């Protein structure tokens, strides 16, 4: 559970794949921003990749569903698909839950 240790990664690198300005994409970005501000203030970096503009980037991270959030750091790599409307499950998916418990 080293990845979940508090303070291990200085910066959380998150990448959000979206397709244009679809409602799901917009909602996902908004939800992600809110969760990070709450749980990782000042320790996160969000990169939004619009596949409509850069379709060639989809294969690299094995993107099938949209929107997809990829946690690049800390390792291991995690993938969360959906508009992240459920905060609790997003936190579990990002493995932020144990960190909050401490």
């Amino acid at each position, binding site marked *: 559970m080293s990845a979940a240790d508090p303070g291990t990664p200085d910066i959380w690198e998150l990448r959000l794949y979206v397709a244009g300005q679809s409602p799901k994409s917009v909602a996902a970005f908004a939800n992600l921003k809110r969760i990070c501000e709450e749980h990782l203030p000042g320790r996160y970096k969000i990169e939004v990749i619009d*596949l409509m503009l850069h*379709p060639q980037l*989809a294969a690299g991270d*094995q993107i099938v*569903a949209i929107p997809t959030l990829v946690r690049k750091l800390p390792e291991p790599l995690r993938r*969360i*698909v*959906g508009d992240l409307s*459920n905060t609790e499950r997003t936190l579990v998916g990002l493995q932020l839950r144990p960190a909050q418990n401490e």
Partner: protein
Amino acid sequence: MNLQNGGQSVATPSLPKAPTGIQGLDEVTGGGLPRGRPTLVCGGAGCGKTLFAMEFLVRGVVEYGEPGVFMAFEETAAELAQNVRSLGFDLDELAKQKKLSVDFVRVERNEIEEVGDYDLEGLFVRLGHAIDSIGAKRVVLDTIETLFSGFSNAGVLRAELRRLFRWLKDKGVTAVITGERGEGTLTRHGLEEYVSDCVILLDHRVIDQVSTRRLRIVKYRGTAHGTNEYPFLIDADGISVLPITSLGLQHKVSNERISSGIPRLDAMLGGGGYYRGSSVLVSGTAGAGKTSVATSFADAACRRGENCLYFAFEESPGQIVRNLHSIGLDLEPWTKQGLLQFHAVRSTLHGLEMHLATFHKLVKDFRPQAVVLDPIGTLVQVGTRREATAMLTRFIDFMKVEGITALLTNLTSGQDNLESTDVQISSIVDTWLLLRDIELGGERNRAMYILKSRGMAHSNQIREFLLTDRGIELQDAYLGPEGVLTGSMRQAQEAREKAVALAQKEAREAKERDRARKREALEARIAAMRKEFEAEELEADRQALQEEAREKVLTQDREAMGLSRHAEKASTKASQRVGK
């Protein structure tokens, strides 16, 4: 040939089709898969779905200049490239030329957390990008059902798949979508609901430990198609589908005659031998000489410089060649020159369809003018009689369409009716030679006759069939009061006849001599009589002379007497006396 278009008329090309380049499949489908529409290829594990899809794509690139995208859900690009390299497909090279693009889509359930709404736009983007970047006309999705194991929201998946197939149609690409066969359904997740234009089912069955691959077109909207199950084969050249059952009777016929390799048999067959492109059945009991007839035919074909393909199910090529030395046939030069090719396998090696598929392939590759199948009866061991009959019918039809002269041998067992074959193909062959043993006088001898030969005036005689060290000889069988005599009985009979003839000749000569002797005797007698007569004549002449002499003497005496009496001058007196 105006007779064409008999059995397999294909609908007018209302529906554009994309040829697959897969051997035989385009014949069955009447031109290929529906162009610009998705086709579902389904079947169980290991039935050849991926290979089918890959061959469709690669042949599309290589043979029809249509670039393609392969979206793999189960194997990586490297694995795929490796798997098809043995078929001579170089995916890396094609990818380098921007003609083919392989995209591996990995979906791992345990890596994915689902939170809220999503769709599969990512897949669309990837596919769309791949299609656009190489201008693809063909797309393969292998096996898209894997998505069902990666995502839990089946409702979303179904809606997205429906959208995907719609989207593929709008893109105008010809797509092949593979699907795993489910229990009682064509695919496990009911893909057939979405792909309704064309569905092809692949099947891999094992019956009696013999495996057979089959292909069936379950549905093909808007076109006529073959509905049978077609056997297919996967080998070094990829997939070959065998559309033999779709053949009609429309082959060209030839009037050319070719030698059977046995001069007297040619003479029996109306003088010229078999018709080119006809099928010949040689049936007979064990050891009747079927293989010898078959190899004579093969030898004759090679002598004409033709290719001959010899399927041997019971003997190895080496054994056949060795055994034929004993009847003065040497096939070795032909095999060395590549004119004669043996294909020796046990009939139980694989299923009937596989055999047929192998025949097809070898015939297509080697292009022989003559083919020998020796013997066909063993094929019954693989399947049932009915299956073997169907297979051989297809084989013979195929030979006829290709214009190849086929010679098949068949073993008839002792208790069976001689004039039948255990695979019941006698009615479809053109020429039927029967070899049989005739048991007589403690000997078995071989005899041959022509049971039928379509389209030629053939001999109706039974000939004795001799295997000599100079090849096969056909002797006139002796027809005596007790029937046909063969072997030493025939020789004995011939000897008897010779003896009788000799005796008659001797008698005739004796008579001749007798007459000559008689004539001699007669002539001798005539000569003796003549001699006797001559002697008598001589005697008579002598007596006449003596008498004359005596009379002269008498006259002289009288004159002398008159002179002595001094009557007158001797001479005048004598003459006066005479005048008185």
